[in-house]
């Protein structure tokens, strides 16, 4: 049995599919067969590549969208370009092996695209690389990582789940995810929870010690992976999986119920979403709105800056789907671990302390205003609110609000409708923002505590660094005091204070948040009903008495033990 981080609840039973980047190296040589045979070998590789790509495109049309699928069909068009095929066959006729011919011709096309002074054309370089890898894999008889065409009951074993890989996951066929890296708050974990796929992360050497075809039991609740269990153990796992499904069914009792504490104090329970389609998941899980719409996915999925109309369409879609419920949209949070290639940001030695989020946006006001205008236009269609990420000083809030006002004037001049009373709030995710929360509260319409970064910046600990991740815990007294202060400052100023980090759904922490006076809980959609249940189990008085004890404790372990002992 392997142990790892319990990243996404549930028990998945299935067959291992180890996704390892294939080695596409070869020895450049002259081919030994006749020219015709070598050309035929190339053509059959090209055919196989085209067929696979077509299947992928068809699936993506349904699972992701028409425009993403079109990129795949474009790959077929490019790979079957008669000019490209001619260039390759000519090289084979000169005696070159198919692999080298493909490499050379791809290099040629690559430099052709790369030489363009238009960004859009230079981006085709990435397509050339995809085509090269795809056909090369066919020539060498290797498999590329493709998570969209897995058989039913697959358990993905991969070093790290990248955003582009997750885009193609078909959740119907994936019973579990096991990775070598990442913690509970990593991208892999967030995606796994959003897709409701059981996941265990940071399993050392899983890609080498688990083999394709192994039968696996992935316990995402406990963080355990069992390889080829004996029949009786497999049977027990199946029963446990059924029980976990039953617990999920029991939570259905909380569907459609108001979110309130045991003594009737109303709370707002909303969802974190990453793209417009997630809004459907949010309503399906009975969310009362959206507490965090991460707009960067719009930018990361694109090959160039999304236009104002494209952004407006995405924000409007969410606003309309959530009807009159609040929708908090966070403006672009680029930098840190979120890279957007076409922005051409410089590599930094310390990206988490560098040019990111609102810092980048305020330094590129024309670009920022495109997003702000799109947000304002969407506010005519629902209760859209604007949220600024990574605020550290009051100037940032003032500058952003000045840009919002500029955009309003522009829209007025064009007679475009928007909500003139749109709320502008900030994430509180830096120690600096926490320390000036009293002042910030006077200039903001709401706060949302981003615990993921707040913990990291407060404890100076990278959650992805195995050697210091023990420090990365919300239970540290330093973090709890910071959260308490932020909630109190917001409440004193009469503004709403929410939390959109992972901690808002932490069953142990919820009574503390009730005691502090948190008004809004923004959690991943699948955690909505469970969070509602836990909130309903506590009265303010009970939560206060627990908080009094806990806030006097000195260590994270003591805090966690006390909270676990009190948990209902």
């Amino acid at each position, binding site marked *: 049995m392997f142990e790892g981080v319990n990243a996404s609840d549930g028990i998945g039973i299935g067959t291992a599919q180890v996704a390892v980047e294939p080695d596409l190296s070869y020895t450049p040589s002259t081919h030994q067969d006749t020219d015709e045979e070598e050309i035929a070998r190339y053509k059959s590789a090209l055919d196989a590549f085209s067929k696979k790509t077509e299947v992928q495109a068809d699936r993506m049309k349904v699972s992701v969208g028409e425009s993403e699928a*079109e*990129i795949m069909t*474009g790959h077929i*068009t*490019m790979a079957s*370009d*008669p*000019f*490209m095929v*001619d*260039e390759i066959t000519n090289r084979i006729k000169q005696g070159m092996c198919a692999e080298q011919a493909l490499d050379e011709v791809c290099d*040629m*096309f690559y*430099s*052709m*695209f790369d*030489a*363009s*002074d*238009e960004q*859009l*054309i230079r981006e*085709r370089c990435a397509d050339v690389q995809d085509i090269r890898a795809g056909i090369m894999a066919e020539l060498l008889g290797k498999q590329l990582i493709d998570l969209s065409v897995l058989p039913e009951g697959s358990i993905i074993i991969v070093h790290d789940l990248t955003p582009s890989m997750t885009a193609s996951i078909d959740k119907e066929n994936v019973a579990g995810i096991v990775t070598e890296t990442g913690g509970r708050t990593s991208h892999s974990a967030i995606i796994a929870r959003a897709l409701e796929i059981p996941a265990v992360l940071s399993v050392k050497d899983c890609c080498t010690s688990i083999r394709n075809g192994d039968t696996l039991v992935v316990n995402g609740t406990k963080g355990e992976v069992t390889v080829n269990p004996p029949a009786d153990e497999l049977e027990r796992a199946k029963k446990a999986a059924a029980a976990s499904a039953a617990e999920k069914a029991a939570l259905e009792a909380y569907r459609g119920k108001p979110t309130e504490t045991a003594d009737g104090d109303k709370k707002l329970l909303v969802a974190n979403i990453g793209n417009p389609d997630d809004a459907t998941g949010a309503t399906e899980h009975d969310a009362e709105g959206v507490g965090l719409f991460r707009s960067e996915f719009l930018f990361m999925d694109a090959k160039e800056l999304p236009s104002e109309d494209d952004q407006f369409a995405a924000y409007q879609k969410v606003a309309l789907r959530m009807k009159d419920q609040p929708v908090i949209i966070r403006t672009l949070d680029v930098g840190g671990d979120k890279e957007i290639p076409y922005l051409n940001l410089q590599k930094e030695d310390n990206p988490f302390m560098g040019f990111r989020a609102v810092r980048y946006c305020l330094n590129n006001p024309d670009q920022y205003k495109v997003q702000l205008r799109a947000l304002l236009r969407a506010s005519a269609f629902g209760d859209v609110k604007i949220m600024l990420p990574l605020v550290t000083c009051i100037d940032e809030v003032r500058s952003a609000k000045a840009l919002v006002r500029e955009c309003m004037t522009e829209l007025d001049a064009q007679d475009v409708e928007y909500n003139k009373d749109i709320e502008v709030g900030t994430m509180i995710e830096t120690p600096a923002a926490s320390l000036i929360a009293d002042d910030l509260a006077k200039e903001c319409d709401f706060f949302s505590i981003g615990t993921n970064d707040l913990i990291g910046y407060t404890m100076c600990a990278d959650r992805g660094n195995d050697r210091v991740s023990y420090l990365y815990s919300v239970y540290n007294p330093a973090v709890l005091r910071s959260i308490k202060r932020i909630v109190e400052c917001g409440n004193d100023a009469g503004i709403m204070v929410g939390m959109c980090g992972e901690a808002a759904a932490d069953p142990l922490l919820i009574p503390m948040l009730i005691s502090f006076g948190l008004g809004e809980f923004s959690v991943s959609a699948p955690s909505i009903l469970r969070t509602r249940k836990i909130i309903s189990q506590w009265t303010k008085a009970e939560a206060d008495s627990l908080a009094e004890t806990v806030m006097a404790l000195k260590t994270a372990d003591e805090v966690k033990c006390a909270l676990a002992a009190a948990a209902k």
Partner: protein
Amino acid sequence: MAPHVVASPIDKGPSRVIRKNKESHMVSKKVTLTNPQGLHMRPAGTFASTMGKFASDVTVVAGGKDVNGKSPMALMAAGIGCGTEIEIKCDGADENDALEAAVQLVESGIGE
């Protein structure tokens, strides 16, 4: 708009040598590209595959460069933007039909 720099392989023109003989004289016509985003993946693919049905060599002249009209990659790399005047040259047995089809396609907005 500024002429686009196209790397050397394309500068050599179509991969087949243009035949100059008595039956075939090469026909050409100038048209303006109206696709809003220029000749990107989809229209380039449509244009090249339509041209691929003809036996004639098809060359698109844009910004002073000859581009193989049957190659979607070469067409894309040429970065022909909206509003660019291009010259389409067809040379071969079915050159008149090819040119007519090409001109019609560009004028109709290449399916966009």
